[in-house]
């Protein structure tokens, strides 16, 4: 996805988010060993700068992602947004990165359960997923239970970290989105 300086100035928040998110994903997540972890790093970086009003660093980070000079990005993108639009842009960007990170995360659970494990562990993982989808358990419980059952080859400490990553990412997503992602991507 490419944008000229003219189109950036004319584009809406949706397009801006799409443009920046695509570049962030390409730069940090695609090809990473744990893209979901990278998603969390990106989100933490954006929110930390934004919440502490460190807009200079935030602009530098986003400009670097889209391969623009910092001043150009500031003048042609950031400064054209009102404060409300900046907040909306940041919120939507974080949401988009969280969705993409969660897709990788749920897919990692799918691969672990259905491709690497299989058998009874896969069957139980399916049952846990269904309990989440029919509202019997929370997303948090599903993640904890699935990782407890699958991948006996992975240590408890590593699994604890994986669980933490999933729960962190989930904080940025609403229940409807989470259910949709689990329904679509945690499928045999």
């Amino acid at each position: 996805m490419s944008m000229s300086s003219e189109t950036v100035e004319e584009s809406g928040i949706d397009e801006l988010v799409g443009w920046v998110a695509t570049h962030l994903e390409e730069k940090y997540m695609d090809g990473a060993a744990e893209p979901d972890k990278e998603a969390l790093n990106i989100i933490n970086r954006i929110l930390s700068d934004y919440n502490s009003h460190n807009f200079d660093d935030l602009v530098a980070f986003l400009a670097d992602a889209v391969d623009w000079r910092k001043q150009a990005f500031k003048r042609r993108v950031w400064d054209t947004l009102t404060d409300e639009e900046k907040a909306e842009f940041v919120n939507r960007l974080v949401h988009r990165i969280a969705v993409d990170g969660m897709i990788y995360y749920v897919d990692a659970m799918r691969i672990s359960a259905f491709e690497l494990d299989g058998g009874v562990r896969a069957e139980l993982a399916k049952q846990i997923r269904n309990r989440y989808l029919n509202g019997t358990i929370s997303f948090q419980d599903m993640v904890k239970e699935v990782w407890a059952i699958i991948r006996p080859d992975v240590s408890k400490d590593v699994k604890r970290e994986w669980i933490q990553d999933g729960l962190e990412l989930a904080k940025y997503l609403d229940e409807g989105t989470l259910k949709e992602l689990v329904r679509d991507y945690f499928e045999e």
Partner: protein
Amino acid sequence: MSGMSESVYETPPGEIMDRLMKAVMDGWMRDMQNSNLTTWDFAAETVSALDLWKDRNEDSVVDLLAFFARDATGNLSLDKEEFVQLWNRLTPEQKEAFLKNLYHSMALHGLTDLLNHVSGNLKLNEAKEYLSGVISFRDLIQRLIEKYTESGSRSEAESVHAGIELADYVGGRELKELVRKIVLPKLMKRE
């Protein structure tokens, strides 16, 4: 829970093993019924999942057993904390004995359903050959596999193979008794 932790230390190991067994088997049956696998496949898969990891990663075995125990009905159900508390009261030898009994119970369930399922595809003389010791149980199942393969039921053929795995966890005499009780009457009625 506090009452539980006090009483656990007074409970004899035999009772702990019974309590754990009831919870695990009941939950296992429920999970098996909710799965897409047949009883014998589910049994063979569970036994191999436990047996493969019991000496390498006990945590993963405890997680799996506790999952089944949690899914047991009503009062039989144990939450993870309760399960772990009871499990940790057992010595390594008692844990080993518990697993051996568990494999046996699961194998019996699996084989019972398997024999009910396949008996129509066996011949009376094949069952008699097995019961009189002319052929082994493995041979009997192998013949079934060949029949299913010839008739194009590859998935049935693969599934029936679980019978050979499960037979390892049931005594020879007990296995013959199962065939005598389940398969023979059906075949004699048909003759």
